[in-house]
């Protein structure tokens, strides 16, 4: 894996062009199917312009999940229906990255429209986990994590709707953050479930992740849910947890949890205890309803958010037009994959007259209870610690044919999205050569405390120096 400081040093020694060019070579010879679109020309041009740029990421290559709009670069959401779509505008985070001097090297693979936990639902084929190519990289930002783990780029952006940044960070042994809802503008993020999702930074270590987060966070008047104010998150990079109280929710160590995962996470809690923190068990009784509520809400929102994809003005178009009803349904039948169709249909059903109260409104009530769980648990504690995923990366094809089992894997990540709190996943151990992720959750808008906790943990372990052998 490569760090930002290494990259900046190499730029000093040679040039941003040289660094970006080498980065593109690695991407083009990648064995993990990480990129959908490589923006070679525009990246080299941007690298040239980065000479003399004073931004914190001047000349640093970054990979962008393919559901974030990039002006002039194809953006497909890994779906056939958006094949060839080139956005005429940049997402807010892309504008910020460009201001900071970062170089967009291309768009990375993902689960189609961010629906999945394994990056196997992509129209462009699955991404492979660099630690073991027989396993999945996690999802839906699987390639964002895999490309960092494989040392192809130092930084990547993903999006997290129900764990889509933290799950692949956990499976690929990198660091990923799902910020508080409203801290990063969603302007330009192609919506899957808009009340849950946030763009999230991914890097090989906590400091780089924080640096990237610092660049992209902040108010944007084009997103009504964006909160005002700017913060200097890099100030939270402090190696100190003395006096910190950790809550450990027992419901997150439930049925189906891998023993190695359970042990590694507890080892992590004890390591922080050694460093001066204290811990206590907390109860989050509504956790068991979170998964059901999450899928009802996410699918309901998806059924509406994906209505705009009809092939009329962009994306997939058929040779022959019929009346508009028929044309729409033919394009959507061909353009969407199986998982996307499943979620659109279930979401449509959940919102229809007669079922709205039974499913959607009920799910909203559960959401309120989950929020209250977090508020209660975080009243007496500063952060919560739990496994990110109940298991290490599973095998390709192992769960994809059984959607319900696959959905179960999200049990520890979705409550965070329902409540809107921030959460980091970082490596805390290995099992059979596969990384294990530790999840640190915090209070709304208190990214500083979880960053400090994660940084202290990382600085006092050797885990972040490990990288998969990719050659």
């Amino acid at each position: 894996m490569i760090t930002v400081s290494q990259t900046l040093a190499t730029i000093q020694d040679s040039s941003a062009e040289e660094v970006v060019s080498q980065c593109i070579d690695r991407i083009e010879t990648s064995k993990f199917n990480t990129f959908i679109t490589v923006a070679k020309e525009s990246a080299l041009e941007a690298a040239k312009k980065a000479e003399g740029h004073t931004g914190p990421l001047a000349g640093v290559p970054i990979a962008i999940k393919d559901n974030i709009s990039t002006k002039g670069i194809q953006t497909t959401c890994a779906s056939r229906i958006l094949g060839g779509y080139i956005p005429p505008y940049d997402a807010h985070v892309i504008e910020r990255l460009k201001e900071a001097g970062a170089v967009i090297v291309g768009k990375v693979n993902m689960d189609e429209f961010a629906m999945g936990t394994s990056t196997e639902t992509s129209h462009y084929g699955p991404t492979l986990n660099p630690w073991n190519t027989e396993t999945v990289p996690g999802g839906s930002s699987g390639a964002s994590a895999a490309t960092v783990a494989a040392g192809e780029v130092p930084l990547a952006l993903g999006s997290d709707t129900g764990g889509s940044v933290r799950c692949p960070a956990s499976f690929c042994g990198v660091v990923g953050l799902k910020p508080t809802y409203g801290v990063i503008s969603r302007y330009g993020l192609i919506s899957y479930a808009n009340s849950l999702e946030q763009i999230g930074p991914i890097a090989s270590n906590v400091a780089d992740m924080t640096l990237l987060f610092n660049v992209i966070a902040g108010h944007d008047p084009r997103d009504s849910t964006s909160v005002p104010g700017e913060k200097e998150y890099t100030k939270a990079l402090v190696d100190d947890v003395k006096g910190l109280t950790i809550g450990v929710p027992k419901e997150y160590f439930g049925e189906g949890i891998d023993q190695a995962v359970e042990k590694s996470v507890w080892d992590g809690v004890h390591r922080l205890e050694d460093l001066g923190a204290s811990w206590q068990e907390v109860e989050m009784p509504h956790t068991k309803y979170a998964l059901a509520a999450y899928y009802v809400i996410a699918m309901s929102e998806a059924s509406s958010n994906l209505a705009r994809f009809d092939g009329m003005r962009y994306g997939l178009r058929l040779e022959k037009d019929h009346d508009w009803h028929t044309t729409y349904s033919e394009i959507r039948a061909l353009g969407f994959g199986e998982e996307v169709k499943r979620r659109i249909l279930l979401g449509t059903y959940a919102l229809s007259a007669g079922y709205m109260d039974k499913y959607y409104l009920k799910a909203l009530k559960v959401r309120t209870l989950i929020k209250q769980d977090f508020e209660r648990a975080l009243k007496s504690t500063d952060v919560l610690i739990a496994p990110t995923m109940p298991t290490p990366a599973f095998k390709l094809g192992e769960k994809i044919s059984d959607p319900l089992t696959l959905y179960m894997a999200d049990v520890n990540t979705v409550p965070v999205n329902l409540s809107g709190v921030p959460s980091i996943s970082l490596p805390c151990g290995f099992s059979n050569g596969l990384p294990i992720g530790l999840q640190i959750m915090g209070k709304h808008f208190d990214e500083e405390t979880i960053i400090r906790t994660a940084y202290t943990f990382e600085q006092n372990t050797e885990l972040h120096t490990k990288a998969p052998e990719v050659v």
Partner: protein
Amino acid sequence: MREESLKLRPYLDEVGVMIGLEIHVQLNKLNTKIFCGCPLDYHDDGPNTHTCPVCLGLPGSLPVINRKSVEYSIKVGLALNCSIEEHTQFYRKNYYYPDLPKGFQITQYDYPIASSGYINIEGEDGEVRVRINRAHMEEDPGRLVHEGGSIERSKYTLIDYNRSGVALLEIVTEPDIRSPKEARRFLDKLRNILEYLDVVDTTLEGSMRVDANISLSGGSRSEVKNISSHKGAERALLFEIVRQKNLLRRGGKVVQETRHFDEARGVTVSLRTKEEAHDYRYFPEADLVSLRVADWAPGIAKTLPELPDARRERFVSQYDITDDHAKSLTSEKKVADFYEQVAAEVDSKLAAVWIADVLKGELNYRDLGIDAFASANMVQMVKLLAGDKITEQSGVEVIRTILDEGGTPDEVVAAKGLLKAGGDLVTAAVEEVISENPGAVADYQNGKQEAVNFLMGQVMKKTKGRADAKEVRKMIIQRV
């Protein structure tokens, strides 16, 4: 309060007509669209020239509410005697249509901005109240242009998204309207109020679009969609009543359906007989946070201008004019402003007569607005009339001349020699006529009354119409 004493009408009168209206009002006096910064003054520009990722619904774009559109909506709500909800929330109405770029329309469902109001209008027999169920905000979709004009015959359809995202306020009445004429009066009154509030330019195409629901004797109702003028609404409703009556008379049954008003032929035609089982799957729009508007309303209430009903009452008491004149003068804000400018300088009663009864008629005949006549000219006119300088007949001629050829009253009077003839001139003319027509004088003296008319005619001819006819008659009778 006067309004409180107005009773609701019986459920149905003997005709059994129930009409409810839904009026889509474009808030086209805003600078920008409801959810983005695109400008609204697109009417003279080419198609798709006022668009951005947001109003085109491009992937990743997000709506941001135009605060002024909320203020305007509250303003209208208050003027329609509605209560303003504490919170207002936007919803998504999901359906597919080619002019709808996102596959859903952002609108309001629960928690509309305003609800439970009313407007009083002139009914068939006295003032009646039409209740307003609610007024809710939403975005206008794009506009379909069928090549060749008709949807059936065109080979292809083009979409212009310039209109996409224009702020709409949909005003929904209870079925309290009893006749097409009342419907038109309601619409005129509503337009009048909107003009007073200065939130809509109603002269722009598509600024007020009407859907009308109509049923007879509580039977099934039909809905006539997208009527673009108030006159059209009256005609469409009249046609519907006759159609439904004839259907019932022949023993048929009115089916619930959606109909289209063909403005050119003056008929309604069926669009969808079996109402499609529409399930719009309304649910809250999470991209727009709920707005607490309770705090906005009191401040906005203070900025409300005097509304037509209040102004009418003030005109009667302040200017000592009849209620009919006051009604006529306040039915358009510009006319009322015009009247007040004139009344400030001359006799208010005389001004009311000349503006309401004469000028408005002449303007209407020429299809002109009040802007076509300068208030200074009306002031001059009324001064001439009040000073007994011209006759009423000449007054009408002056107005017509100014409207057709231009000029000021003084100029027209001078050019056409309309100044009322002085006493000496008339006396001389009478003397001349009497001496020139001894036969007619003799006829009158022998009891033939009509002879006076002949003599009067001769005098008028000599004075070129500038003499006051009544006075001339008096003088002739005295003299002979």
